[in-house]
């Protein structure tokens, strides 16, 4: 399945460091579209950092530096996301991210999901309403919140908050979805729901998930990459040892 | 695009604000410095009198700011000297002993005291002096002592607040160590908590010093005069730098006097800059990040 889809993300010669520590060391990876790729490995910054290289969120860290190139196929064309002409807000609408700890904004459920649309300049109320409903349905959350959209999002349970964050990322129809240990702060039931949710999103997005739970990885992923000392040391199912080319 | 336009406008406004603020201050201070730099010399302080004679109080200084400088120093010393014990004691009481209800009520009063315009503190000092004059001793008039007392009232809330806040922000483990080793509450406070809070408390003291040195409204009503020489006693009139500056601006007799006004303004500014640097030094060196937050 992996080999036949087109390549969505192409990363070459990635180096990343901040302060004194070297986090990523000459990394190469191709991520195929409409697949779920898991990134695993021992605790450390490497896995989450790799994700932030795909939406350039690492640039907020003081003293951080990277080298290398990342090309992502967006809207039919191959884009160098580190090219000066690339707009960060646009990039992040196409490459969405969900964090380890749910981070709803201090506003109502509806406003949370509508937020990215507002940032994108969409003001048509009807259009926003439809998009919010679609996103919440995609995130398996609509039935639970449809009668309380005006409630503060922080009142939701942990699992619901995380689904809200996923809905919020989905509302602008991203082509890539990056999830950083999305279930590590949740209980077993909530985890199960989110895993089902992620599987269902494979149709619409290309998904990269960081996880430290191998059982979860085996349940969800089409492919997993193991990071160690800043390099990929294992690539299942292809099981190639990646050398620096 | 509308959003991009809005972005540019907001960013431009932010930068413009920063620019306007910086330019205003630079202009005001630059103006003072360029006009008054030439006056900085012993003559500014001592006029025609020989400096040594003036310092030893053998001769009066007539056209110099030495008396005003001495007046300010005495004033600050007295006021802070009176306010510090009471303020720190109150701060300790609030942080360590006060019941929650008491704390809330007292806290309100201290905030009100902090917010009272300085002119009202001056009015109070003046009225109290007159009241005492009528009812106790004809000797009491607005004077150095009354001014110092009034200034002490003015800075009291700063001292209370900084002492209280510093003590309250000490980490829990610091509070638990001494009692766990058998120290009484008093011992903990005086041997552990206060020494740890020193930089915060000292910053509060420096803040008070600055406040007393620059205040004009209070002293205007409680005994400062334009010409008094070195004060003979606590109950006599005195001069002070801020009032000197004010008087010169309102009515200067000749260009020389105006220039002395500029010089005085620079001297006062230098004193405040020094106090500012001192506070910054304390903040960085003694690493008290509890009061100021990590930056």
């Amino acid at each position, binding site marked *: 399945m992996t080999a036949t889809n087109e390549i969505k993300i192409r990363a070459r010669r990635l180096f990343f460091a901040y302060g004194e520590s070297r986090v990523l060391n000459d990394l190469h990876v191709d991520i195929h579209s409409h697949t779920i790729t898991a990134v695993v490995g021992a605790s450390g910054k490497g896995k989450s950092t790799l994700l932030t290289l795909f939406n350039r969120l690492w640039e*907020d860290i003081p003293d951080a530096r990277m080298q290398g190139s990342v090309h992502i196929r967006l809207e039919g064309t191959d884009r160098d996301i580190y090219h000066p002409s690339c707009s960060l807000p646009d990039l992040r609408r196409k490459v969405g991210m969900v964090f380890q700890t749910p981070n709803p904004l201090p506003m109502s459920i509806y406003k949370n999901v509508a937020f990215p649309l507002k940032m994108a300049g969409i003001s048509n109320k009807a259009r926003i309403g439809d998009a919010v409903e679609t996103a919440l349905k995609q995130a398996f959350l609509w039935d639970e919140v449809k009668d309380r959209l005006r409630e503060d999002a922080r009142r939701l349970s942990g699992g619901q908050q995380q689904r809200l964050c996923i809905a*919020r990322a989905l509302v602008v129809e991203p082509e890539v979805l990056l999830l950083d240990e999305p279930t590590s702060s949740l209980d077993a039931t909530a985890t199960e729901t989110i895993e089902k949710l992620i599987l269902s999103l494979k149709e619409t997005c290309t998904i990269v998930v960081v996880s430290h739970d191998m059982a979860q990885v085996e349940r969800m992923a089409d492919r997993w990459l193991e990071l160690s000392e800043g390099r990929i040391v294992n690539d299942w199912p292809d099981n190639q040892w990646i050398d620096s080319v | 695009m509308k959003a991009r336009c809005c*972005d540019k406008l907001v960013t431009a406004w932010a930068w413009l604000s920063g620019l306007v603020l910086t330019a205003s201050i630079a202009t005001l201070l630059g*103006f003072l410095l360029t006009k008054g730099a030439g006056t900085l010399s012993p003559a500014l302080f001592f006029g025609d009198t020989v400096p040594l004679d003036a310092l030893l109080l053998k001769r009066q200084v007539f056209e110099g700011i030495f008396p005003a400088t001495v007046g300010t120093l005495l004033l600050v010393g007295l006021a802070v000297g009176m306010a510090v014990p009471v303020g720190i004691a*109150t701060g300790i009481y609030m942080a360590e002993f006060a019941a929650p209800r008491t704390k809330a009520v007292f806290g309100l009063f*201290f905030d009100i005291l902090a*917010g009272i315009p300085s002119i009202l503190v001056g009015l109070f000092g003046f009225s109290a002096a007159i009241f005492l004059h009528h009812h106790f001793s004809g000797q009491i008039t607005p004077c150095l002592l009354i001014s110092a007392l009034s200034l002490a009232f003015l800075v009291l809330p700063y001292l209370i607040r900084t002492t209280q806040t510093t003590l309250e922000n000490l980490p829990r483990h610091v509070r638990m160590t001494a009692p766990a080793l058998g120290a009484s509450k008093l011992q903990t406070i005086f041997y552990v908590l206060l020494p740890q809070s020193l930089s915060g408390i000292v910053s509060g003291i420096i803040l008070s010093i600055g406040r007393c040195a620059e205040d004009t409204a209070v002293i205007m009503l409680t005994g400062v005069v334009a010409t008094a020489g070195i004060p003979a006693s606590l109950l006599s009139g005195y001069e002070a730098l801020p009032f000197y500056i004010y008087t010169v601006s309102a009515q200067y007799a000749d260009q020389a006097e105006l220039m002395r006004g500029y010089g005085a303004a620079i001297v006062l500014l230098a004193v405040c800059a020094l106090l500012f640097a001192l506070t910054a030094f304390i903040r960085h060196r003694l690493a008290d990040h509890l009061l100021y937050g990590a930056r």
Partner: protein
Amino acid sequence: MRSQGLVQGLLAVAAAGSVAVTVLIFGFMIVLGLPLVTSGTFFNLFTSSWLPNEGLYGIVPMMAGSLFIAGLAMIFSFPLSLGCAALVAVLAKGRVPALLHRLVRFMTGIPTVVYGFAGIFLLVPVVREWTGSGSGMCILSASLLLAILIAPTMILFFTDSFTGVPKSYLAAADALGATPVQKFLHVVIPCSWRGLTTGVLLALGRAVGDTLIALMIAGNATAFPGSLLDSARTLPAHIALVVAADFDSLEFRTLFACGILLYAFTTLTVVLTRRMVADKGGAP
């Protein structure tokens, strides 16, 4: 153990004494201002003009002076302070924020009389030239200078509020495609409204309570001001000027009425500010 009781008692006395001072100041003003009520001139205070030679002690022109000068100063200073705070906390990177912040902190230490002195010899002539009328000592000049004076108070409060916004909200906004300005407008400001209000209230209290700027720059005329370029007198400046009058006269007693107004206003701002802080304790 006995010594603890003694020390605690002493500390309590110090605290009680401090409270007593606050009450005493207010009490003095009420008591000394009482003759105004008993002699029937109380309403006169709020209706007539200030003509002490004719027995008229209206302080309304001074109230207006305070209102206009402080109000205008806030109008100038608020957008300026907000912009500077935005620059320091959110929008600028590198050395600029730190330097600006340091400058603002330094400004809090500059004596008011120094501002006034520079204002008289620099700002007033400029305003005089620019407007072509009057002496330059007017509401406009005083407001401009006062705006600069109170800006640091607001900027420091605003900056602290902005940097206190939880990082998770900022990360969320970034990841969802908000530009720095959008993040500022839609996340940072809504989260900081308590700090913003507190800063505004404190700056307003400071503006109304300031004596020297108006005293030195606004002209001190006792007539009701009609325009920005008119000379005006504020309540604190009025107190400073009239204090030379005979202590037992009614003229002097009006100062206590002014004092009570000022005391009441600043106490109100303090109470409102404490409300802000208290409420924050409840919210997440």
